[in-house]
């Protein structure tokens, strides 16, 4: 017997110094509490975790008192098990993104950066020129750059040319959980690029994570769809499972679609027929 079903292991994905056995990249924003976030991370067991960098809120002190820094939402979360992927969220220009990236490097002691330059406050869709400029600059400064972008195919090619270590087209506008809106473009990007393509933003349910992995995406980034589920912990687990299932299916190769129906049961040998 030539085929044996032993335990199956999927090859990890490498992006710069990061190794992703689990191809679900887990966000840390918009969770109901840090306890829930911690539980999600324990359930999903990601390798790469995104976070952001922001000004410490310095509460104005009453006269004669020491001002208090408010509790950080990540305070109760043990991030030591994860590789950190800080983003430049909040930047609307390449300059801001570069500045945030440098701060993030000092804060995480790592070179990974997710470039995000927003071009439109209403849709939070990325600015093509700013995104490309920030990528170029940060590659020059030695960062391992993963760039959030739209589903524009040529822009994705340009980002690869600019030295991005991974390109991260959005499935749909950030936070909408609408799921993949442009299969054609996302598949073209996956097909045309040599660097890993990570589907970012807008995924809503685990089946959509599986679906883009089946297309050949290298990984997915999920945040709102987990954080805003009724049960974030189980949803985190489900995204983790579905991402692996989609990867596995991609490698196995789908059965060919047939426009003709075909019985999976033998057509002959039926009594009385």
């Amino acid at each position, binding site marked *: 017997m030539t085929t044996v079903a032993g335990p199956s292991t999927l090859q990890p994905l490498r992006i710069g110094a990061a190794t992703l056995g689990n191809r679900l990249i887990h*966000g*840390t*924003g*918009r*969770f109901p509490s840090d306890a829930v*976030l911690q539980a999600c991370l324990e359930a999903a067991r990601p390798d790469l975790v*995104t*976070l*952001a*960098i*922001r*000004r*410490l809120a*310095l509460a104005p002190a009453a006269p004669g008192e*020491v*001002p*208090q*820094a408010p509790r*950080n*939402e*990540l305070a109760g979360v043990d991030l030591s098990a994860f590789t*950190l992927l*800080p*983003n430049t*969220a909040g930047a609307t220009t390449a300059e801001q993104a570069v*500045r945030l990236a*440098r*701060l*993030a*490097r*000092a*804060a*995480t002691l790592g070179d990974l950066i997710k470039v*995000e330059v927003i071009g439109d406050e209403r849709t939070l869709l990325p600015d093509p020129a700013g995104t490309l400029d920030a990528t170029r600059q940060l590659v020059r400064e030695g960062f391992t750059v993963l760039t*959030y972008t739209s589903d524009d195919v040529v822009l994705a090619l340009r980002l690869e040319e600019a030295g991005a270590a991974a390109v991260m087209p*959005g499935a749909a506008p*950030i*936070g909408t959980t609408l799921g993949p809106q442009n299969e054609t473009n996302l598949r073209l990007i996956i097909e045309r690029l040599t660097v890993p393509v990570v589907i*970012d*933003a807008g995924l809503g349910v685990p089946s959509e994570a599986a679906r883009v992995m089946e297309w050949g995406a290298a990984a997915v*980034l*999920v*945040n*709102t769809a987990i*954080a805003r589920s009724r049960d974030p912990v189980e949803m985190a687990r489900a995204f983790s499972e579905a991402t692996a299932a989609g990867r596995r299916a991609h490698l196995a190769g789908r059965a060919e679609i047939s426009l003709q129906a075909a019985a999976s049961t033998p057509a002959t040998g039926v009594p009385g027929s």
Partner: protein
Amino acid sequence: MTVAIVLNGEPAEVEAGITLAAFLENLGIDRRRVVVEHNRRVLRGAELEAATVARGDELEVLQLVGGGA
């Protein structure tokens, strides 16, 4: 004596000549949990001990927070 600086984008008065390390300590901020930018230059580790605050300085104190996209 204090000097006027810009701290996290807001006007602030701080003790003249204080080191950034001492400044953070006075605010009760754990240095290991923040990152500091002094006049657009990111300071690392021991640099906080050396750098001192002067009139008109721009100081940013940041931390990692939850985020995704």
